[in-house]
Structures are given as structure tokens and as C-alpha cells.
């Protein structure tokens, strides 16, 4: 897999991150060497192998439909960088 600047910038965008030009160049190089190594996984024969999901056979873990929480907006908002009128506040989302 060949990494280039366009791909790095696309990955930044997907992750809502912006690198400086210097970081971007370094990241391109690092990701390339990591992916070259990761590509050795292609040597592993996985023909007919089911992808694994959970480590152990555990299923049907459910809870009852019973209300257990009480109103405590103040607690939920305690760590918010900006909150108003009982809500989290963010810069406007419509333009």
C-alpha cells in the first residue's frame, strides 16, 4: 500500500485532525513504514477463515426495561466547556 500526501490529508479529515506540513510529511513516512510492515499480514493464509469477533462465546447479555436513572442535568453538564439553559453549547451548526 502506497501512502501519499493526499491520503494522509484524507485521513486527517476523517479523524477531524489537522497536521502541520512538517508533521504531515513525518506522518506520511511513518504510516508508510507501519503499513509496509502491516502488509506482511498478506502472507498469512486466511482462506475460508471466519472473522473473529468476541473472544469468548458470550451472548444475550441484556438488562430489564426498568428506569434506573433520575434527572441530574447539572451533573451531566459538570464537565462541559460551555453550557447554557441546561444544554451543552457549541458554536452554531447552521450557516
Amino acid at each position, binding site marked *: 500500500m502506497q501512502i501519499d500526501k493526499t491520503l494522509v490529508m484524507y485521513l486527517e479529515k476523517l479523524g477531524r485532525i489537522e497536521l502541520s506540513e512538517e508533521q504531515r510529511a513525518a506522518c506520511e513516512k511513518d504510516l508508510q513504514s507501519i503499513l509496509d510492515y502491516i502488509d506482511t499480514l498478506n502472507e498469512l493464509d486466511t482462506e475460508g477463515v471466519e472473522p473473529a469477533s*468476541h473472544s469468548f462465546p*458470550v*451472548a*444475550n447479555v441484556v438488562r430489564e426495561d426498568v428506569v434506573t436513572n433520575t434527572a441530574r*442535568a447539572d451533573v451531566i453538564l459538570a464537565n462541559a466547556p460551555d453550557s447554557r439553559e441546561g444544554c451543552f453549547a*457549541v458554536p*452554531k451548526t447552521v450557516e
Partner: protein
Amino acid sequence: MEWEIVMGLEVHTELATKTKIFCGCSTEFGGEPNTHVCEICSGQPGTLPLLNRRVVEFAVRTGLATNCEITRKTKFDRKNYFYPDLPKAYQISQLYLPICRNGCIEVKGQDGNPKKIGIHEIHMEEDAGKLVHDEFADCTLVDYNRCGVPLLEIVSEPDFRSADEVVEYLEKLRAILQFTGVSDCKMQEGSLRADVNLSVRPKGQAEFGTRTEMKNLNSFHAIARAIEYESRRQIDLLEDGETVVQETRRWDDNKGISYAMRSKEDAQDYKYFPEPDLPPIEISDAYIEKVKAEMPELPEAKKRRYQEALGLSEYDTSILTSDLAFVRLFEATEKLCQSPKDAANWIMGEVMKLLNDSGTLPEDMTLSPEKLAAVINMVKSGKINRGTGKKVLEKVFSEDVDPETYVKENNLAQITDLSALRPVLEEVIAANEKSVSEYKGGKTQAMGYIMGQAMRALKGKAPAQEVQKLLHEMLDN
């Protein structure tokens, strides 16, 4: 050129569970912002989702009621995207192994024959929060009360060819969801939302045209209008030699137009992958049998039963089963007044008229079966006549009065004590000597006039047969 409209539907319905899909917060509608919110549904670091048992049960119920196959090992996946209404920045949904697949609902096709609309899949997911744009502070306020409310997304095949089919499908689907107790389907509160995928193609062409997705369709009426508008728009574009752009459009029901929405982000890559925090759900035959056994009666079965066991007509049953609110009112009233026919007639006549006149939706009706049955029983026993009954029901409907108290306080009851009638009739006879003598002279038509005078004097509160019988008794000898 003749054009064909091709449509598919994505219906989201909020489930009528007490709590959210992954935490113990209430799903109650309304409430102050962020009061139905905990660490889990606000995506606090370190928290984990816990699946609500009822959500699986409701999904299986819906699948069985829509002729779906139930996936025996179903899993959740994460759909990743950034938006302030989504606190974890991923929605827990199902992509790879949805809980139900390959179902159908039958509607009446354009040719009048039954037509099967395929259901591609039904999957479980969580709702997002609500954003309110605060113009004064130039910011957006985020309320997570709805965040984590369980949803089913019911995805149809692109089988619709007309707005009528769409509306009938939605009506049937809504009835199924309501009758199974899965959702209350209140469109105003957003508990039933339909997005329409629509494309047009020259009639006879096999390939689909480019489709658009329409959102914000808040009523069946809006859906029909939006389909009309969007199909016209696409046909006009194509006939003018232009192309349809694949996009999401928002319907503005006030203006009667749709417009393209700015997409949430330029590149939509949801990076779905299996949710590692939730173990899979394995659904056994025994479980499916249990859900089947506990399944509430569906509209078709109710119709059959009303006809066979209660002796109602096909027409009556189809009206009564058109809305769960009517069914609930009918079944309870029928038991209380011991007369299915009377209960049906009153609901289809007076109750529906009152709903219509006041513009009330059946689901918002406050009329209780106890009060309706009380009115019916008073009419049946002759305590009041039918005309009075209608007036009393009107008062019950508009002011929620107690029918028996109302009749008593306003002195509306029929005079059933015949001895009380005699003095009144004697007065009437005395006051109408001329007619009485005409009657006695053989002019039998004069009885009609005397009867009218008697009923007026009695203010209509006596049974007419009794009054007539008594008059004959008094005059014929």
C-alpha cells in the same frame, strides 16, 4: 414519454419501551433539557452500553408481523460520524447482521390487485439528540433527552410505483406497529418518520434512475405531496435534458417545495465495524415461539374476530380496526355495554363525527370507554333518548363531564314513572279540547297533534310509545 416513479421507504419508529436502548434513562417525551440523560447516553469516557431486553423483543415482534425472517445470530455495528447530536460520535446500529430480513406488507396495487411490498431489513439502533439553534447567543444548544431512545429502521425494497401505495403501506405498517404495542407512532412527536427514496425512469426501462432521498416528511399528507412534487421535479429535469443529482432533500410542507440539504460532511464514510462492547444476540426457536405466543392481535385477525364472534359487518370492522385508538375504545366499551353493535355504531357515528368536527386525532382522544358505555347504556335502557344521548356525549367529549351526573343535574332523564305522566297528560287534554273532540269524533289524525303537544309538555323526556299508549287509554274509553 410516459414515466414511471420508483420509490423505496426508510421508516424510523421509536419503540414504546420505558427506557432507552442502552441505559436506564426514561424515554418519556418532553421534559427539561438533559434530564433524561446519564453517563452512558451522554457518552462519558469509560461507559459501556447495556442492551434493553424489550428492544429485541419488539424487533422480533415487528419482524414476525411483517413476514420477515429472524436472524438467528444478530450483532450491533458502529456507524461513525461527527455531529453534536451524537455524543459518542458513533451510532450503535446494525449493518452486517440486521435482526429481521426479507419481509413484506401487502397493499393494493395500481391495477387494483394485491401487491407485495418487500421489506429488505429491519434493524435496531439508537436515536440522536436534539439541536436547538439559539439566535441570540449565536450558538447551538444540545439536548440529549432523545439520545439513545430505541429505534427500528424498516427498510423497504424499491417496490413502490405510486403515492397511494406508499400511503397505504405506511398506514398498514403504522397499524402493525401500534397493534403489536411496539410503537405509539405519533408523527408529531417524531416517533414515526419516513424518508422516501425516489427516482423516475421511462416506462419499460429496467435500470433505475438516479434517486434522491427526501426527509422531514411529518404526515401522510406531506408524504403524498412531496412525492408528487419530487417526481414532477425529476421528470421536468429529465425532459429538459438535464440530470438528477443524487442528494438528500428536505421537504418544506408550508411552502410545498423540497430543497437540497447541505450534506453533513463532504465525504460520508461511516467506517462501520462490529460493536465490540455488545455481545451478539442469539435467537432460538423457543424465543420466537414465545414472542409469537405473546403477540397482541393484529388488525387482520381482529377484523375476522369482530365479524365471526361479534357479528359485525366487514365494513364496520375495517373502520374500527383502522386505528388502535378505536380498537381500544371499542373493545372496552363493547364489554361494558354488552352490545357490540351499539358500541360500533356509536363509535363510527357520533365519536368519529366529534373527532372530525373538533379536528382531534384518534390517538389524542380523551373519551373513556366507561363514559361512552354509560351514555349507550342510558339510551339502551330508555333513561334518555338517542337525541339526548348525542348531546350528552358531546358534553363528555368536550368537557369530560360525567354522563350520569350531567343527565341528573340537567334533568334530562326520561319520565319512567307512568303515574307522573297522567297529571301532565290530563292538562294537555284539558288545554286542547278542540283536537280531543275531533279525535273522539273519529278524526284519528288529530291524535298526532295531541301527541306533539304532550311531548312538548313533557320536554321530550318520556318514551313516546308509553305516552301514546296512555293517551289512547285516556281518550279511547
